[in-house]
Every structure is written in C-alpha cells, then in structure tokens.
C-alpha cells in the first residue's frame, strides 16, 4: 500500500492502463505539457510521448468527437473535459452521439472511451466552475457514470472505466484532489457498478457520492456519539450501473433512506434513489425518504453563501435528527 493523493491516483490509473495497452490514448486541454490544470496528469507526456498524450485547442466538441471517432476505429481514448460544467459545451456529442451510437447501430459500433472531468463545488469558483452534473449523465441512456471518493477508488475505478467496452463519464471531485489515502500496490482494477458500505448501522441508511461521502461519514459518527443513532453509510461510487442490490438491501435493513448529494434539488440522483426505494421497498420503510441536496439555485461564489448551499455535516446531522425523531 502506498499513500497517494486523489490527484496522484488519477495519473497512476491512467499510466497503469497506458502502459498495459497501447490503444489507450489521452487528449484534452493543457493535459500534456502542463500536466493538467488540476495536476492530475503530470508525467504522462514524459512517459508515453506526444502521440499518445495530446494537448488540444479549446474545442470541447472536437475533443469528445475525436475521442468517439477514435474509439469506433480501434482505440481506447480518454478525453479530459477540464471542468464538468463544460460538458454542456459538448453535450450534443455526449448525449446524442456517444450515448446512442451503439444502440442505434444495432451493436455495430463499440465506444470504449472515458471522459474524465472535474466536478463539484466548495472552493468559491462560482456558478460556472462548481457544478455537480453527474445527474445530467445519469439521465442519458448509454452512459456509464462513475464518481469516486477515495484515491484507491479513483485508481481502481478509472482503470476499470478504461477497460470497459462502453463509454464512461468519470467525475473527479475537484475539491478532493489533495485528499490522501492508501492505494494498493501493483495493478489495481476495481469493478464498475459496485457500491460500498463504508459504515454499518441499524437506524438508517445514508447514501452519498464523492465529496459527500466523508461528510456523510462524519455526520454518522456524530450521530452515533451525540445521539446514539446508528447509520449505515453507502458510498455509491457508480451511478450507472447502479448497485441497487447493495443500496436496497441497506434500506430494507434500516427502514430509512437519506440521500446526500451536491446536485441541485430537482431531478438529481437522490430523486432517482428515492423513487426506486419508494417503488421497490415501500413496505420496508419506516418513514419518509429524505433528500439532502444543494437548493435549486446556481452555486453562489462567496464562501459564506457557498457553504450554506452545499450540504454540510451540520445539515446532515440536523436533518437526520428530524428524520428519525
């Protein structure tokens, strides 16, 4: 085990796969010579050379379009879209072309590609550089959607995404880059579509993703010590495929579900989880399903406002207190 930062784990995951398979190529803005604006791809150009690690113009449509064209002709490209907000700039290529082409062509065309992007808020970057848009991707059939919360998961899930034969949108949380954690030595490949129970408790289930995972965990610990309330915490890790088996099992056991997401209020993945639970394990529920989200507003910039808008440990604790009351 080596201790890595979240950002180092990105580069390690990519490097592991590029070393293994020369069909893996990588393109994006400022990713090669500069090593990425989040310094997630430092060293790749030096290791794999300019044919495989390519700086692009500011042309998001061309970046993901090129990845798609390369994927359908034998390569396994990784495209970086610098901030997840900019997925909107190339949303047509992602939602209308990449997501649909295998299905539309009756399976003729394979698109083994990964689009990596920096997601999420928390650093006063303002409304156009702080969004959590994993729900946008989840809403489009044909995309796999992954969002890790630890360096080990970053590396293992990224490797799995690169090996996956289908398009994966890989959300890295931009304000977790400096967090550290142990990462298995040697080749590390995880499995898409698997959630992780990271804490067990009998009173309720808290489902969280990415930066909300450590907050949910901290809230669960406080609830335990301050209120004697025991929460199971599920790190979803992957939204598509969704590990409904693990999630619903936890909900059935605890009788309650609380979701904690950075998505704005409406149509987030929390709504999807709530809807699934309300349909599939209604009779196991002891009370309302509660969603903790960013309110349905763009993210404000000033630190004081931004931290009110994003779900906080306090808000989780207080909401759960009211819920299990």
């Amino acid at each position, binding site marked *: 085990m080596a201790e890595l930062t979240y950002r180092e784990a990105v580069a390690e995951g990519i490097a592991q796969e590029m070393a293994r398979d020369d069909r893996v190529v990588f393109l994006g803005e400022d990713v090669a010579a500069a090593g990425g604006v989040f310094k997630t791809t430092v060293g790749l150009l030096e290791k794999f050379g300019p044919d495989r690690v390519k700086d692009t113009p500011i042309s998001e449509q061309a970046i993901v379009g090129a990845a798609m064209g390369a994927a359908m002709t034998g390569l396994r490209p990784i495209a970086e879209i610098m901030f997840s907000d900019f997925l909107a700039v190339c949303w*047509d290529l992602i939602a209308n072309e990449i997501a649909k082409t295998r299905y539309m062509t009756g399976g003729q065309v394979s698109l083994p590609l990964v689009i990596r992007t920096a997601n999420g808020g928390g650093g006063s970057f303002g409304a156009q550089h702080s969004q959590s848009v994993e729900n946008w991707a989840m809403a489009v059939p044909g995309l796999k959607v992954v969002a890790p919360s630890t360096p080990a998961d970053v590396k293992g899930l990224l490797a799995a995404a690169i090996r996956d034969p289908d398009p994966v949108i890989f959300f890295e949380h931009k304000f977790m880059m400096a967090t550290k954690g142990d990462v298995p030595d040697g080749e590390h490949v995880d499995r898409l579509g698997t959630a992780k129970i990271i804490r067990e408790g009998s009173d309720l289930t808290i489902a969280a993703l990415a930066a909300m995972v450590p907050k949910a965990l901290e809230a669960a610990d406080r609830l335990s010590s301050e209120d004697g309330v025991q929460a199971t915490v599920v790190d979803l890790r992957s939204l598509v495929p969704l590990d409904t088996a693990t999630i619903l099992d936890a909900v059935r056991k605890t009788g309650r579900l609380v979701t904690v997401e950075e998505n704005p209020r409406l149509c987030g993945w929390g709504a999807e989880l709530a809807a699934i639970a309300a349909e599939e394990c209604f009779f196991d529920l002891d009370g309302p399903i509660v969603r903790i989200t960013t309110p349905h507003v763009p993210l404000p910039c000033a630190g004081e406002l931004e931290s009110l808008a994003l779900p906080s440990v306090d808000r989780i604790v207080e909401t759960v207190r009211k819920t299990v009351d």
Partner: protein
Amino acid sequence: MAKKRGSGAAPADPANDDIGTETRLRMYRTQLTARMFEKRANDLFLQNLVKGTIHLATGHEAVAAGFATAMRDDDLTFCTYRGHHHTLARGAPIVGVLGELMGRECGLLGGKGGSMHLTSVEHGMMGCYAIVGAHMTIAAGAAWSAQYQRNDRVTVCFFGDGATNIGAFHEALNLAAVWKLPVVFVCENNLYMEYTPIHTVTAVEHPAADRASAYGLEAVIVDGNDADAVLRVARVAIERSRDGGGPALIEAKTYRHGGHSRADPGTYRPKAELDSWLARDPLDLYRARLLEFGVAAKALEAMETEVLEAIDEATEIARSAPPPSPDKVEADLWAEGGAAWRN
C-alpha cells in the same frame, strides 16, 4: 486566397482519357443505384411502408460516385442523414439499406436506427448522423486513429452547406488541420438548408471554400454533378491525405431534385433555378458522356435493367422481412448485449 474553381473539370476528351471506361461504368452503376434506390424509397414512403422521415439525395449521386470510387476499400466514410447514396456507394447491400428504411429486422441496423443513421462498419460506412455538424468532429477522430495506428486509411466526411455555420464545423476543421489528420471534408452544397437558401444566412459566397483559409487549407470547388470532376478532385485530396499531407476541404456544388425531406415539396425554389439544375442532372450528363466515350447504348440499358432488378429484388425481400423482435428494445445498449442500468 488560393481558390481552385472547377478543379478536375477537364473537358471530355475520349482520345486522352485519364479515367477509363471500366471505372466510368462503375461510377455510372453507382449513380444509377443511388438514383433508382431513392425513387423506390420515395414510392415506399408514399405507400406508407417507409415511416418517419427520409432525406433523398436525388441529384447528389455524382458526389457519392466520385468519392467512393477514389476511396480504398478500407477508407472510412462519415455522412449526414442524407446518406443513402453514400451508403450504397460504399457497397452496403440494397436490402440492408431498404430494410432499415422500412424498419425491418434485415435492416443494416436491425431497424433500430432508421434512415438517418445508416451504418455499415464492414463497408467502411461509419455512420450517417442526424445532428448537423457533430459528425465532422467524429470523422476527425477516426482520422486521428488512423494516423496513430499508421494504417494508411483516409476518412472522407460529407456534410451540407448548412453545416458550415455550426460550431462543430469550425472545431473539426481546426483540429484536423493542426494535427494534419488524414481526412477529407466534402461539402455537398445544394444551395439550401431545409427550406432556407444558404446564401441568406452565410457571411461568404462559398460557405465551405471561403472558410478554407481560416484553417490554412486550400479552397477547392468542384462541379458536384460531374462524377469525373469529383473523382479527379477526390483522388488528389485523398492521396495527399494518405501521404501525410493533412486534411482537405472540398466544396461540391450540386442540387437536390426534391424537397429537403419527405415532408417538404420544395416549393420555395424558383422554377428557373430548379429547371436549370434538372437540365444538369448528373445521371443524364454521365450517360451522355459514356455514349460519347463510345460505350454502347445497349450496354447502358442492360445495366439500367440490372440495377432496377436488384432493387426490385431487395424490395421484395425487405417487404416480406419481419420487424425487429420486441426484445431488441432492451438490447445492444452495452457491449455485453443488454441494456441494464442496475445490477
């Protein structure tokens, strides 16, 4: 700006023929097949056997024939929803194309894509795309892949005049030029978008060619109704690209004989304009040229009969083919064959 106008349009000179009768007959067959196919597709649409919408390329046949003929078998084609002609020109079976339009299991895509998304990877037809411009970036990617794999393939990407004003056009051309990708972009300029004349919404006269210099490319304009002229221009551009010369941008002037789609009678077009283009029907022009080059009328008639028979036969097969089976709704979203979003 170094613009080449009418490049490739050498006057017909049987004594000094750079193309040859065999190739010309192949190109005539390609054009015939496309033309007769479109007529059949239209008939089937009127009989309600083709549903949804179709976009006929009647009038554009010479572009498809010229390029397909200049391409190597393993070269790649990308085109738009108006792509029946290119799909057939690359060798996809008529029954597969017709079956797809009719929503049958025997369709190229098993009925799941429809006329706007014809694809036949085995024939190098990498897809028809229905969102204007997007596919130009995808074509650039395919060319990047060929460059990386050093497999010598050239990608040819067709698009309409209307696509020249969308952002993806700009991004694709710049990327292709910067990376010197082996891709030939071909604008089928038929003077119209859906119902709106391209000149009313474009800042320059030649929507593609007048943009070439913005990417450091040469401006090339060719008579898109003359398959020989198209072939000559195509050969030069494709081989230049294959040899590492980077992308090309070609504007082929042509005209669609009918409306934009089956919903459109095309009445917005001035009669004189329509007539003048009908008088330059690529099929008529080409037939006349073949006769001029000494091909017997009988041989052409025989080919015409043959092509029609092939289309008749395909029609019968497609007509009696079953629709896709219901389980296809949840098939082939993922490489493993299914469509599950959960475990």
